[in-house]
């Protein structure tokens, strides 16, 4: 339990650093560390597959691309567009509203009540695969089609001249 609190502290600490660091490249680097702590959380929950997929997909691929884009843009303090105070105030209000909504909906779900899994080994690859392909086959396939269509959409958007397709 103490380990959980330590890792949870690290997650919150690094995610705050993501927001507060001035340099966007530092933000991404802190985000990588934050995702690493998430992987540790998954391992503590005995969800090996989720942990390692989080490791590969988020740390190994998505954040590499984030870093790639930010390095090319080379943002720094001088070139950062100054936002007006009105925008900042609106942003704070919108953020607080989102926080309120999320907190309220989580309270309705009783997410803080302890959940006992019927099968504590559900996070291991073999069990997870069986559940996904037997009980939740339709949602699984639908979400894969959703991902595929998003990919096709991204390729289409990236084409310079659509008429040539």
């Amino acid at each position: 339990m103490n380990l959980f609190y330590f890792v949870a502290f690290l997650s919150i600490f690094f995610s705050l650093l993501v927001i507060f660091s001035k340099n966007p490249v530092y933000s991404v680097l802190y985000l990588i560390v934050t995702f690493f702590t998430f992987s540790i959380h998954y391992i503590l929950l005995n969800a090996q597959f989720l942990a390692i997929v989080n490791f590969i997909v988020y740390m190994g691929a998505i954040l590499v691309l984030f870093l790639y884009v930010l390095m090319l843009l080379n943002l720094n303090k001088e070139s950062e567009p100054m936002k007006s105070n009105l925008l900042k105030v609106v942003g704070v209000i919108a953020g607080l509203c989102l926080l309120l909504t999320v907190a309220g909906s989580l309270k309705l779900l009783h997410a803080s009540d302890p959940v006992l899994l019927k099968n504590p080994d559900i996070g291991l690859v073999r069990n997870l695969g069986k559940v996904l392909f037997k009980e939740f086959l339709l949602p699984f396939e639908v979400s894969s089609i959703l991902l595929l269509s998003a990919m096709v959409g991204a390729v289409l958007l990236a084409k310079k001249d659509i008429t040539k397709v």
Partner: protein
Amino acid sequence: MELTFVIEKVVLVSVIFLITLGIAAYSTLAERKIAGYIQGRVGPHRAGPFGVFQPLADGGKMFFKEEIIPSQSNPFLFIAAPCLALLTASIGSAVIPWGQDVTIGDRVIQLQVANINVGILYIFGVVSLGVYGIMIAGWSSNNKYSLMGSVRAASQNISYEIAMGLSLIALLMVTQTLSLREIAEQQNGFWQNGWFSWNFFCQPIGFLIFLVCSFAECNRTPFDLPESENELVAGYHTEYSGFKLGAFLFSEYINMFVSSAVMSTLYFGGYNFPFMNDLGLSANIIAVLGVLFLFAKIFFFIFFFMWIRWTVPRFRYDQLMNLGWKVLIPLSIANIVVTGIWITVKDLL
């Protein structure tokens, strides 16, 4: 956790780490000797007999050179990048099974640091982290050539990871497990049930794709675009000097060693060797012989890496991308489909 277990693992980790460093150091000598042989030269031969002390001399030179940190760079990340490169290169060896269990007295010792049941995915994750050291090095040097090198490294690694992952999926369909230990055990001996037991003979195309992708992931020629010296000076390590440069070069050789070990384990039977069950030797001797055979396979692959380096010239960047996206990925998907059909048909027969 009992004390003997901790001691056992600490000893194993230190031995593997020292062996990794030793092999990485002597790979530099081997590379220069092989380059010399291929180009009709002698290679280094001054430091000791046949130049065997050359790696020590090189290391000493690296230590005593001046450390330069460019004034416009980001000093913290500039120093962190080579450390990260070394770290991500070395942690991959943790899940490789180096040999069969050794029994001393009544204690069974596993020659593997961590027997996790998602071993392949762990290797894959570590490989995908390897690019961070290069990217951070390129960005923090604040140099256009370095930035170009790190951008190339990032896009190259992302592109080849996909084909690598797909070739591994076909392998998983054959082996039905993600644990490297079980994969090594399945390839016991050399001949089983009327066919070769090594996975290479079930997955030759998968192995070819994996081999090409590991060349790309290690940034070895013909895929060393991130550091191509005649376009980008030296790419991501242009600004590095002294031991920080040494750390980058070292991590490249460690990467080569680890990926050779992974290839031997996944496709070439790991610590298994032909006729291992017919010799009538005790289990411990077979385990020791198995470790030796695994290292022989690893050395062969390291030699293969060097052989390719001095034979095949560097690709152009568009050729690299075409090979990755238009050849390797469709080929690996076709390999998955063929493997799936073969597994189904085999059960029907």
